[in-house]
């Protein structure tokens, strides 16, 4: 049964409840714009894989969310971006990490899928491939916003105690770390929610022919170690698509990786026979342990679903039968 197209977008999970009203409105406006872009491409019968790339490019190009321009900064104050894309009907995929000059990482991930014999290229090798493919390159400064320079400073202050990896880390986890957990109950990845940059943008689409696709892109975690790879480029963790569904995750990368969160949605549908929303609810409830994350998903039947266990997720979704929603809070 094919049930028409459906689309969902996200701009990251883990939102400061004190986010000023005008920033909330700005976020919703951007989500709506991206959603409309996806909807109109679906109406003109663009394949799912092209739609997710197009929408994520738009999210990357706008500095509001943490990907492309507006990416979170590494400990060194640089930007290292990563992205992945997956075409469900053939389970083809492409991923990139450690990009410093590629304007739209998601499109390079697409090129890795289409034009290289590999699925995943990283760092200087990925940059070299970008130059060979002639994608648009910019100076690293282009990605760095003033907001994020300030955020990095705050993150460093908060992190100097929380995230010193030279201290033996018995029981250390990627979330709710250290004594500060009690000081500030609202945290993501050990950072106070006011400093945390929601980690990712993503888009999932099923087209009229029932083909599913997923794409995710990110600047990663604020104040991350150079070389750190998160969940976004990992097929099965941040991004996954099969004949049954398309999934894009966001949140605490390490929790998403160890729970293979995106594949999990597909696996419980495939092997346990759960419906899309049931599958999403199951993995959010049962698979994250103490980790915090959110995800968006579509099924080949034209359903759309999302779920998150943290404070807020920037998201929007729409289906062919006229349903449309853009929201931040539960």
């Amino acid at each position: 049964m094919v049930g028409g197209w459906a689309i969902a977008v996200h701009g990251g999970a883990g939102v400061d409840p004190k986010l000023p009203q005008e920033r909330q409105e700005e976020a919703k406006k951007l989500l709506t714009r991206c959603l409309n872009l996806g909807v109109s491409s679906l109406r003109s019968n663009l394949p799912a894989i092209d739609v997710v790339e197009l929408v994520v490019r738009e999210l990357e190009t706008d500095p509001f969310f943490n990907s492309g321009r507006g990416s979170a900064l590494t400990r060194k104050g640089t930007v290292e971006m990563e992205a992945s894309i997956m075409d469900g009907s053939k389970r083809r995929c492409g991923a990139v990490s450690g990009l410093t000059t590629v304007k739209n990482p998601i499109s390079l991930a697409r090129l890795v899928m289409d034009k290289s014999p590999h699925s995943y290229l990283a760092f200087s090798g990925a940059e070299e491939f970008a130059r060979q493919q002639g994608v648009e390159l910019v100076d690293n400064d282009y990605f760095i916003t003033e907001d994020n320079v300030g955020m990095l400073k705050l993150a460093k202050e908060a992190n100097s105690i929380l995230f010193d990896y030279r201290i033996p880390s018995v029981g250390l986890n990627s979330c709710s770390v250290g004594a500060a957990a009690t000081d500030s109950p609202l945290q993501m990845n050990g950072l106070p929610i006011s400093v945390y940059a929601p980690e990712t943008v993503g888009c999932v689409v099923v087209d009229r022919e029932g083909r599913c696709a997923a794409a995710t892109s990110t600047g990663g975690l604020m104040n991350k170690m150079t070389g750190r790879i998160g969940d976004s480029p990992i097929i099965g963790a941040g991004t996954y698509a099969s004949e049954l569904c398309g999934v894009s995750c966001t949140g605490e990368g390490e929790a998403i990786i160890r729970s293979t969160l995106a594949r999990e949605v597909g696996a419980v549908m495939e092997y346990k026979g759960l419906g899309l929303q049931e599958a999403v609810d199951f993995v959010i409830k049962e698979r994250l342990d103490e980790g915090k994350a959110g995800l968006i998903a579509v099924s080949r039947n034209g359903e759309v679903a999302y779920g998150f266990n943290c404070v807020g997720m920037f998201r929007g979704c729409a289906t062919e039968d006229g349903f449309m929603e853009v929201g931040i809070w539960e």
Partner: protein
Amino acid sequence: MGWAIALHGGAGDIPLTLSEERRLPREAALRHCLHIGVTTLKAHQHPLDVVELVVRELENHPNFNAGRGSVLTSAGTVEMEACIMDGKTKNCGAVSGLTTVVNAISLARLVMDKTPHIYLAFDGAESFAREQGVETVDSSHFITPENIERLEQAKEANRVQIDYTQPIQVDAKTETDTADDGDSQIGTVGCVAVDNHGNLAAATSTGGLVNKMVGRIGDTPIIGAGTYANNLCAVSATGKGEAIIRSTISRDVAALMEFKGLSLKEAAAYVVDKLVPKGNAGLVAVSATGEVTMPFNTTGMFRACATEEGYSEIGIWPSLQN
């Protein structure tokens, strides 16, 4: 319930005519590594320590594609990657793009134990290695004359497929291994172990693919693809990385057990037979109850296993038991 261990030195098109001089040292290495694993399991070491130790040993062996003996990138360099995972806690660590670290698997373990992250790559991973004081050597240490020759052969034969500056036919977009000199062209090393308490762990390490593009990441460091462990089973996979990634094969072994109620053997057989095209992959796996399985759909897989019940096998091609 008893302990069990399985290890591999890569799956691929290993010719049945493999000469004795190539076969014997590899069989000896498998036997030696199995012995180390069994001894440490019997001495009640944690499976996480056991798999790390065994994979270090496999990395140090120049005939397997990991550590010294790693295959070369198209630029003639070595870029190693590895991953380790603990079943009970699902803690894990991974590294890619290492050029000087003697034992990639131990750096993956340090990423797991000593950083807030799971996965570090390239320069960042190398500087972490220096901070941690792990043993590093000049990159030339890893390069064997055999692998220089193999790269030349691969470049010759693979030019069309690997030359990504040319338009690529969709169906030609495969990672073709070439020279059939009996070594594991697309190989990896890995080990999985379970102790009497049902603690599980998996570890995988590789030099990647001959003539790979600089910066290419394969399945080995990807949790759920090349490496996975939870409270049901531990899996280490080997073969064509891209096929393993898209089928998330190590996670799917566990998912089939968990969500479909299959046994370890059934789940692993399903994954290898149904989810990956023939000639693409193999895996070793153990379950919490001490079962072991080592299926592959390639010509052969360098492998070895042992269980507390006394079952043991060292093999390369399909055995009668399979």
